[in-house]
């Protein structure tokens, strides 16, 4: 029996390696799953970095409780390694003293199959935890926080997977990011669940992803709770297929402290959910309340009035389905340039759901968007709505919008989006 267990254990790293395609080769010796233990201390940062460089696939690098101070980026580039602390309030990785020229983030992950869990990353000058071009990747019970409060000098992103696939971010806490607490960009197959995000500019941002599920999160006290954005001039173009459901999105009224120039700097403080230029988004069973600009905004990239040059880019929201949400409060005090300007059209306040009405005029059939492309809204209690019809707002051409609060044109539904199926390294190997 003992032999069998040992055999199984010895094969695990091997299977893991197999599953990721053996980028760096492997060792035909039989090796056990290994745990490297690191304790806090003056040499801990160097020892930890060395351990991550020397790690073998399948290793667990275990950080004891305590505080670890870093002066440069901590990076991991070995596949199937788990970096594990003793808990998000017990193992603290502090980057307060990170110097110039030592990397753009606190912790950098660039290999497949990595798990980061049970630790905190604090006060990074740049992003806290960046995972790039890898998958599957898991971030679990991680806290990213800027401890001096919400300031423009804080790093941009807390938990930041980009150009990844099969991304799982769960049970994390992200506080104080000057861009987004949890930001998943240019990725495929994404699950962001049961996280708590607060006092960031954006709580959670899904950007240029395909197939993302965002659910059971709590977003509160951010400038914007949950953003679903498609942006131009990025290598992975377009954003599609995002489900946002069963989240609590409450009182995201924090002043926007993002440095100007960044897209989130144009998000009005007091935004619950904002969908920008995305296609196929299903927003359901959320509780969205007391976001003072608007509980839900559905807009085109064109409202930002930013210049772009990207022939692949589609700046319009299409096929957005909003149903069975509970809205209350909010919209009473639109702020930010965008919020203040646009709310002039509606008497200074906004209803629960604000749609800018900017559509791709080339797609209109007899003046209307074809059904499969429409914004559909139903069964949201007594939630009110406005279509600002900005597509017709061209004062210089004496073209003015027909603002409408009528939900009838948005009656209907879209086919529910399928749940995201995340795959393990082994499953990925067998399907590829």
């Amino acid at each position, binding site marked *: 029996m003992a*032999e069998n267990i040992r055999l199984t254990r*010895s*094969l695990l790293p*091997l299977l893991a*390696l*197999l599953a990721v395609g*053996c*980028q*760096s*080769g*492997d060792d*035909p*010796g*039989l*090796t*056990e799953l290994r745990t490297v233990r690191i304790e806090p201390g003056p040499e801990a940062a*160097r020892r930890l*970095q*060395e*351990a*991550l*460089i*020397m790690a*073998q696939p399948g290793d667990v690098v275990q950080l004891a409780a305590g505080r670890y101070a870093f002066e*440069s*980026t901590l*990076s*991991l*580039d070995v596949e199937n390694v788990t970096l594990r602390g003793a808990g998000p309030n017990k193992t603290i990785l502090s980057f307060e003293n*990170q*110097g*110039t*020229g*030592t*990397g*753009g983030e606190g912790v*950098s992950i660039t290999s497949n199959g990595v798990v980061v869990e049970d630790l905190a990353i604090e006060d990074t*000058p*740049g*992003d806290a935890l960046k995972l*790039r*071009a890898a998958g599957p990747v898991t971030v679990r019970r991680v806290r990213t926080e800027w401890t001096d409060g919400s300031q423009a000098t804080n*790093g*941009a*992103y807390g938990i930041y997977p980009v150009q990844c696939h099969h991304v799982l971010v769960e049970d994390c806490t992200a506080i104080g990011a*000057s*861009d987004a607490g949890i930001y998943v*960009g240019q990725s495929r197959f994404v699950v962001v669940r049961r996280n708590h995000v607060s006092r960031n500019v954006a709580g959670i941002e899904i950007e240029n992803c395909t197939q993302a599920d965002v659910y059971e999160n709590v977003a509160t006290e951010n400038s914007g709770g949950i953003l679903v954005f498609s942006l*131009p*001039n990025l*290598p992975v173009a377009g954003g599609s297929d995002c489900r946002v459901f069963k989240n609590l999105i409450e009182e995201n009224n924090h002043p926007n402290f993002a*440095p*100007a*120039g*960044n*897209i989130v700097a144009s998000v009005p403080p007091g935004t619950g959910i904002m969908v920008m230029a995305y296609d196929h988004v299903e927003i359901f069973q959320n509780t969205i309340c007391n976001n003072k600009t608007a509980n839900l905004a559905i807009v085109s990239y064109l409202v930002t009035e*930013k*210049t*772009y*040059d990207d022939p692949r880019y589609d700046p319009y929201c299409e096929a957005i389905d909003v149903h069975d949400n509970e809205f209350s409060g909010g919209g009473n005090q639109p702020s930010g340039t965008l919020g203040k300007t646009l709310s002039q059209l509606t008497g200074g306040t906004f209803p629960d759901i604000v749609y800018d009405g900017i559509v791709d005029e080339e797609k209109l059939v007899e003046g209307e968007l074809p059904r499969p492309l429409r914004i559909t809204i139903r069964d949201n209690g007594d939630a009110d709505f406005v279509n600002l019809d900005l597509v017709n707002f061209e004062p210089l051409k004496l073209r003015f919008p027909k603002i409408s609060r009528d939900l009838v044109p948005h009656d209907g539904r879209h086919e529910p989006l399928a749940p995201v199926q995340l795959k393990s390294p082994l499953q990925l190997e067998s399907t590829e």
Partner: protein
Amino acid sequence: MTRRRNKPQLAAAGLWCLLLTLTGCGRAQPADDWPRTLSAYGLFAGNGSTQQPTEGVIPYDLNTPLFSDYTTKHRFIKLPPGQHANYHDKEVFDFPVGTIIAKTFAMRLDRTNPNSEEQLLETRILAHRPEGWIGLPYVWNREQSEAILQPAGGTVDVRWIHEDGAERTNNYLIPNMNQCKGCHRVGRPMSPIGPRARHLNRDFAYSHGSENQLDYWSRIGALTGAPSPQEAPRLAVWDDPETGTVAERARAWLEINCAHCHHDQGPASNAGIDLMTSQTVPAKIGVFKSPAAAGRGSGGLSYDIVPCKPDESILVYRIASTEPQVAMPELGKRLVHTEGLTLIRQWIREMKPDNPHPATQ
């Protein structure tokens, strides 16, 4: 750091063989076979302190080098005996397995005096192994008699007299092995950056006299397939107006300082900027491109490059910065390359707004 091994077990071993056959994986090189000292490579005469190469080790230079906090660099390449590299017009030459590339970073103690003594800081090795390239940092000891492998990198305090006669100091950064990959990566595998035709196409003062590097490499059998230097691509020397226009020199500077990350398969590909000299689309080099994930690196500015307006261009703001998160390049740079910055500013100032004409090739 040693790994425990099980006794070989028949079933497991059999499965291993099967799996190996299925996947064709090579053998991982355990950390233990990385040479611990630089002298083990036998690249230099004596203890290496004079950086005199041994027989078969070719010194070389690049037209426009990466700025590395005012250090001087000594570059060497050693091919396996009897083997050669294959020429490519655009890409890094094809080097045989066993090739060793070495780059020593040194601080000239008095930059007003070309014959001043140097302090050797580190030698970075790029070794081409059967499983791919690997980057290893060796740190010179205080006695300058040996450099020791330091996988986690480190820092060295340096002090020198600058060109303007002022004394300057720096906490010089030695990258760790992962940071090596931070720049030397195309997609997933590592790769050298410098040994491309356009960077190498220049004269070098060899011990036998001055000669074009491509010609020399071809003549001694280290390189095959190279055309004459007149037919090979050549980048401008960033600070030599005789070698190119302002735009050509600026683009050469941007390629070598930025494009190792900022190209379509580089570690910063997610930002959507490509600063290779071959890129001709204005938005791809940053003209009126909004930042993707710059955070406070935006400096409150809206676009990477605003033609004619260096002070409104994020590119300039970040090159001019030494703040963490703002400063670019984000690895290995503590000091601003003032002279390079001046060139980039001039290039942007002279851009035509309706036709930024960013291409140089």
